[in-house]
């Protein structure tokens, strides 16, 4: 099972495209998803920034986004993608739907991780005069760190999986390569190589995540 020189070049390009899409959307997802998760938690009833309105709106936005299947979502957000990136086609354009879909996913995972922090710790911080910002920064996020790292790990893996659908709008990437060459051109060995590569990458991400979780667990 040997790939031709041409296939190897394609494989390299696709891998870099995948890496580009996943890396950028992971970064953006974390930067946007964690705060959204924090918002959902702190505006909950009984929490430090209780607000029924904000809680409901955020919850609705998250649920609405999550209920759209990703291939449809890519197409659905094309106007927004054009507005933000200037084009709806290509690897960069795919980062928009990838990020949006993953942000709400990340927000839900963040919410779960933050709710694991006992409320007593927040009370203790309030009792020494910590502000809400300080409570989030110095209590909730550090205490939830193992859970947050786990959330990022899961999100990265989901993004790798989602990015396979980037071919729909010319985003390229490993998934697209596997479909076009491995499936549509009957090049089974291409399929095999990409599957094995994805397997190794996902395993690697999971192992790295687990390792970090252990490093940050003090409970």
């Amino acid at each position, binding site marked *: 099972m040997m790939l031709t020189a041409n296939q190897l070049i394609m494989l390299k390009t696709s891998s870099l495209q995948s890496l580009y899409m996943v890396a950028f959307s992971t970064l953006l997802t974390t930067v946007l998803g964690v705060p959204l998760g924090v918002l959902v938690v702190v505006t909950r009833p009984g929490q430090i920034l209780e607000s029924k309105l904000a809680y409901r709106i955020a919850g609705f936005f998250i649920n609405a986004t999550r209920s759209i299947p990703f291939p449809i979502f890519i197409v659905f957000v094309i106007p927004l993608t054009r507005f933000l990136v200037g084009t709806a086609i290509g690897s960069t354009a795919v980062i928009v739907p990838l990020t949006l879909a993953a942000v709400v996913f990340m927000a839900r995972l963040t919410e779960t991780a933050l709710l694991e922090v006992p409320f007593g*710790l927040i*009370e203790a911080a309030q*009792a*020494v*005069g910590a*502000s809400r910002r300080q409570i989030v920064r110095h209590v909730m996020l550090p205490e939830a760190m193992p859970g947050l790292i786990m959330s990022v790990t899961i999100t990265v893996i989901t993004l790798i999986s989602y990015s396979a659908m980037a071919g729909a709008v010319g985003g390229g990437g490993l998934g697209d390569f596997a479909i076009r060459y491995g499936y549509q051109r009957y090049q089974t060995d291409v399929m095999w190589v990409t599957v094995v590569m994805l397997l190794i990458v996902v395993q690697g991400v999971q192992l790295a995540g687990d390792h970090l979780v252990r490093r940050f667990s*003090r409970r």
Partner: protein
Amino acid sequence: MALIEIRGLTKTFRGRGQGPVEALTGVDLSVDEGEIFGVIGLSGAGKSTLIRCINLLERPTSGSVVVGGRDLAGLSRKELLAFRRGMGMIFQSFNLLSSRTVRGNVAFPLEVAGAPRAEVEKKVGALLEMVGLSDKEGSYPAQLSGGQKQRVGIARALANAPKILLCDEATSALDPQNTGAILRLIERLKNQLGLTVVLITHEMKVITEICDRVAVMESGRIVETGRVIDVFAQPRHPSSRSFVEVERTSRDEYFRNSYKPRGRLVKFYYVGDVVAEPLVNALIRLYDVRVNILQANIDNINGTAFGTMLVDLSGDPGSVSQAMDFMRESKLRLEVLETSAEAGSEAGPGTTRDGADGGGDGVSSVRKQSNDNQGGPG
């Protein structure tokens, strides 16, 4: 003016399902500077809500909380944060940050207050020494025992040099040895730093060990307040009595149910210096009575002795009455638990007990009962 003044405090929670829940109903309380004030109650009595109203972790529904002359209701958000720094709090479940070391936990309030790094370092060292944990500064909470965790909690609570320390069931998760050690630490620090301490607990032992005054809570109300020794020696409210007498009553129960007195089954209560008097000896020499001591005990209530003695007092009914008067004159409180048929009182055993239980005023009702009993032939 007391350091903490609580007037007409009410807190209503929006209940889940079955309507609003009144956690506090019209609570009045004042805590003087420099005292250790205990609030005792069963779980659900509202004591946890009460202590949280003192630093506004809970917002009162109505009523006022005035600390050091300032009404907390009037504080802006920013003022409230500054105000809370003047008050430390420790918790039943310690509530230490698991992601920070012992040092990091104690440093937390100082960092929050924006203290410069060098000052934080210095203060944390001193605080850890004060609670005896200097050797554990690099450990994480998960590596500590319960007693050690609470010491960290205390060091953290005192980091910003507060004047008031709030203890929310601080020893309820600890074993008896650690409970004792933590209570002594709190008492020592209170004296050393001039703290005022408010603590809540469901254990009478905690109250008798370090508190000066106590308030007894039941279903959102304070039913009795007073010096610990007074409440302990002579609880007026049934709820207080149940806290004080859990142990004592079970002992009495045996004698009441299984023991047949030859004369009168009498219980003596005595407080303070009377303990040193050889009263039983005097009783036997002065009166023609037989004294059978069934049970005797002396408790140390925060430095004051409090004794109880259960005796079977038999002999000529007249002498027994005189003997009992003698004990009363010697500043003992008497309670007649049971009278034998031969001693010839018309008052049944049950009546005496009911009288003592139902009365709002412990002394007079007990006295009245004993007097009634003396009404027999004699």
